[in-house]
């Protein structure tokens, strides 16, 4: 028995299958939504900023002045 041949018999090739529907309307909905993933970099920057306020408390005043 040839393993590749048996594999192809066990899991048949899908070949040229088509999506079951037009995906463009889904795409438009996706474009209207925000990205699903959390903005990790933004959270990391916020954490660094918060940590810096504990180390340099006076920086809080400077920060809010700049805001």
């Amino acid at each position, binding site marked *: *028995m*040839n*393993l*590749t041949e*048996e*594999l*192809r*018999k*066990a*899991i*048949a*090739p*899908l*070949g*040229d*299958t*088509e*999506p*079951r*529907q037009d*995906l*463009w309307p*889904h*795409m438009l909905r*996706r*474009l209207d939504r925000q*990205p699903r993933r959390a903005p990790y970099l933004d959270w990391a920057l916020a954490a660094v900023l918060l940590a810096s306020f504990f180390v340099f408390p006076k920086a809080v005043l400077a920060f809010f002045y700049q805001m």
Partner: protein
Amino acid sequence: MELLERFVADDMDAFETLFRQFQRDVYRWIVRIIRDPAAAEELTVETFWRIYRSRARFDPKREFGAWARRIATNLALDHLHRAPRESELDTDRIAEPSPDHTARHGVRDALRRAFRRLPPKLRAVATLALIEEQPQAVIAEALGISITAVKTREFRAVRLLRQSLKRMGVEI
């Protein structure tokens, strides 16, 4: 202005044209890897969302299809990593029963189980190369690896399959 240049310049009509032109190819590529039509449709949309988001970085001289396939492959691999058991084989087309069905049934069932246990990276290569018979160069480009690396993964996948089958008492 060419279609890809208009797409890079944030022309929504150009994006729609590209979407309609490539959605089938992207879907087929994803469904071949993850073998789950519903999830493949979602990932196709997600692939084009990422394409749209990165449009400013795209070089219009490059081949759009290859770029799309690369992004689609990364998403499909993430999907296999996240749901290695759920995404697999529910919708696989099983071959028609043959006269020696009962004798072969155990072997094929064992093969499916062994295949499901392959690490996602090996499973993706094994699916594309061994089952779907895609050219190694295309697989290599989509995965961002060399053809030699594709051959190595193919070899490792077959070896792991044999080991798995042996543990199940099946010799091929």
